[in-house]
């Protein structure tokens, strides 16, 4: 919806309708993205866009790697996304940057405090964050982190829960998407564990109802990072036009879709001659920076991979307002 909104804004409705080929998988398959991408490739499309989330992004990245077809995914952070060649891009920042940014925030906000990192091994982003934490940050003498893993029911085992209940930790670091943390959030509420939470940037994209319910019931603060600077001029502009079009407040996900639509629209408008895979890729690389997006200016690297955007931290307040840290 927001993607098409951004695309139409750039190309106009008629051209958008003419060039856009849609496909989606509603089977719930974990490899639905591959099936969808394969079908589109078989239709000989000139470029692929979409596939939000690290899981789908990485699957598609592997599929299109080496095929020289421009592929842009919205907001995904997985480090592997930088390894699929110079035709594959994500509007998100890297997981390295995500984790680094979070560790720096923790260092600033909870100096010398002990924290528990909650990892959902079944989520790609969480698993990727775990790998980076183990490789780069757990030996940092300035921070004290203990990795705790959710079980198959996405709950924390009683042994670990007891540590939290006994107040052994001063904060929690959620590495997973909010959808994957519902059971654990309920477990925390039932166990009356209320300690500060530092969430991944995906928490800015997830189900806001869940977040609000969780936050309303919490007394201690919840922090999360996001690429979307809510109170910026560009952000406000996007909010206004979105409300005008759809009659409701946009979500962070809408912003990501809109920005991707704008980037694709601008790229298509740059294409000279017939629209082929090569011409579209060439048009994209003509200028790797894109203006007037909801996040403002966004640039990519020639070699492909993550965008230049840097996440900032916000705190959810109980009055539902947000504040930059």
């Amino acid at each position, binding site marked *: 919806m927001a993607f098409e909104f951004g695309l139409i804004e750039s190309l106009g409705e008629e051209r958008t309708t003419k060039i856009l080929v849609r496909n989606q998988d509603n089977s719930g398959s*974990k490899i639905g993205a*591959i099936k969808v991408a*394969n079908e589109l490739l078989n239709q000989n499309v000139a470029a692929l866009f979409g596939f939000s989330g*690290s*899981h789908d992004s*990485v*699957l598609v990245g592997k599929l299109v790697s080496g095929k020289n077809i421009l592929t842009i995914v919205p907001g995904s952070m*997985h480090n*592997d996304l930088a390894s699929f060649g110079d035709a594959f891009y994500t509007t998100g920042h890297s997981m390295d940057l995500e984790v680094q940014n979070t560790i720096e925030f923790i260092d600033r906000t909870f100096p010398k405090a002990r924290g528990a990192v909650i990892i959902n091994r079944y989520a*790609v982003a969480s698993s990727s964050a775990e790998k980076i934490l183990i490789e780069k940050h757990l030996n940092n003498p300035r921070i004290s982190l203990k990795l705790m893993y959710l079980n198959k029911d996405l709950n924390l085992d009683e042994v670990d829960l007891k540590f939290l209940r006994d107040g052994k930790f001063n904060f929690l670091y959620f590495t997973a998407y909010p959808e994957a943390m519902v059971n654990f959030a309920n477990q925390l509420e039932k166990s009356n564990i209320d300690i500060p939470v530092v969430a991944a940037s995906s928490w800015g994209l997830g189900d806001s109802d869940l977040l609000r319910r969780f936050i309303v019931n919490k007394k201690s603060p919840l922090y999360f990072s996001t690429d979307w600077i809510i109170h910026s001029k560009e952000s406000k502009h996007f909010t206004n036009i979105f409300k005008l079009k759809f009659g409701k407040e946009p979500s962070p996900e809408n912003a990501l879709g809109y920005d991707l639509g704008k980037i694709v629209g601008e790229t298509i408008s740059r294409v000279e001659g017939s629209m082929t895979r090569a011409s579209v890729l060439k048009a994209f690389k003509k200028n790797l920076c894109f203006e007037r997006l909801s996040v403002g200016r966004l640039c990519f690297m020639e070699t492909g991979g993550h965008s230049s955007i840097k996440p900032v931290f916000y705190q959810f307040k109980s009055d539902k307002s947000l504040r930059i840290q």
Partner: protein
Amino acid sequence: MRVMTKVKYTLLKKLLLMQVTVVLLGAIAISSTFLLSSFMIARSDLENEKKQIASYLLLRADEWTAWHQVGMTNLLSEEMNEFQNQNRLKSIRFVSSQDPVSKKPNEQDLVIQILPDLWIQVELEKQNLLQLFWKQKNVVYSMLILTFFFLSVSYFSFVYLRKKVHQPIVQLIDSMKGNMSGVRDVSKRIIATDEMRVFVDEISSLFERIKTMERTSALGVITAQVTHDLMSPISSLEVFLENSSILDDEKELLSLSVSRIKNIAADLLERNRNVNGRFSGIKKNIDELIVLKNAEFSKCNFNIICEIDGLTGEEAIPLSGLEFQRMVSNLINNAYESYEGKGGVVKIKISKIESRINIRIIDFGKGMAKEILADIGNFGTSFGKAKGSGIGIYSAKELVNSIGGELNITSIRGDGTEISISLPYQI
């Protein structure tokens, strides 16, 4: 200590061999059937197992493929290992067309294509013969029990036959070889039951009779020879008497004596001839004998009462009149002697029962004890007579047996004796 004759257990061995062969053939047949069905069941199980694994696998395949593609190798390995252990698989792995060491799947492997160039290959645990066999262990136990049962039956039947049939026969043979006489006594000590007991008794009785016949036959030959030799001097004596000048009274007396001797010799000769074709009317002979015997005992306070029931007078038995009269005469004499000179009565009852003539000679004399009764009738056994030779009852019995008749004695000491004779007859 009895020394058993070494007899090969040929029949028993054959019997046992047949039993063991049947058991073994049965065991082989059951085993073959069982093995064949085991393999078929195992093959079917394997196919079902493959289907089941495939259905489980398909539930997880998408997520595993996703993990494989996004590099979540630790989680993928854990889940695949768990799946492998739960389903007793040899291995489970992703195989790509770009995989440089792509192992070619064998027949038992399960290969599921997930993506155009990506498969999940499952190698099932190979099951050897023993494992397949052991899957049916309940049947194995049943088969072993069955075989054990069959072998036990074979063994016990062998032991039973050896004890109940083989050993009595061997002992009987031993007793026949080691005893010229008294086989019947020895046979009583042979442990035998039911029809084997009857068989042993009958055989020993038969054997003893044959032995006796052998002895009497030899005696008969001598008797015939002596009798034959006597006939010549008797003829000479008759000629001499015919021509002698002695007084008529004396000549007549001597002539009667010579005639008597000649009759006795002729009778002895007749006894040794073939008796086939000899028949005599029983009623006529018994009537004559009763007249003679009543005359003989007329002064002895001894009465002979004869009751003949149902005889027409035409019934003939396969004995000469002299043989029959001698036999009954001897038995009447025995009855008289059982009164020890005090006088008494003997009843002779003759009747027809089906195809036989039944003669009962009953006295009320001193009778015999059981132990005497058991031996009476054997050659040389006598009771209550100072000069008894034991030939009377014995010869009567032999005579009756020789024509297919039966002679039985029942006696109670102090009450009397009954001799029952059953004879075949013709009309």
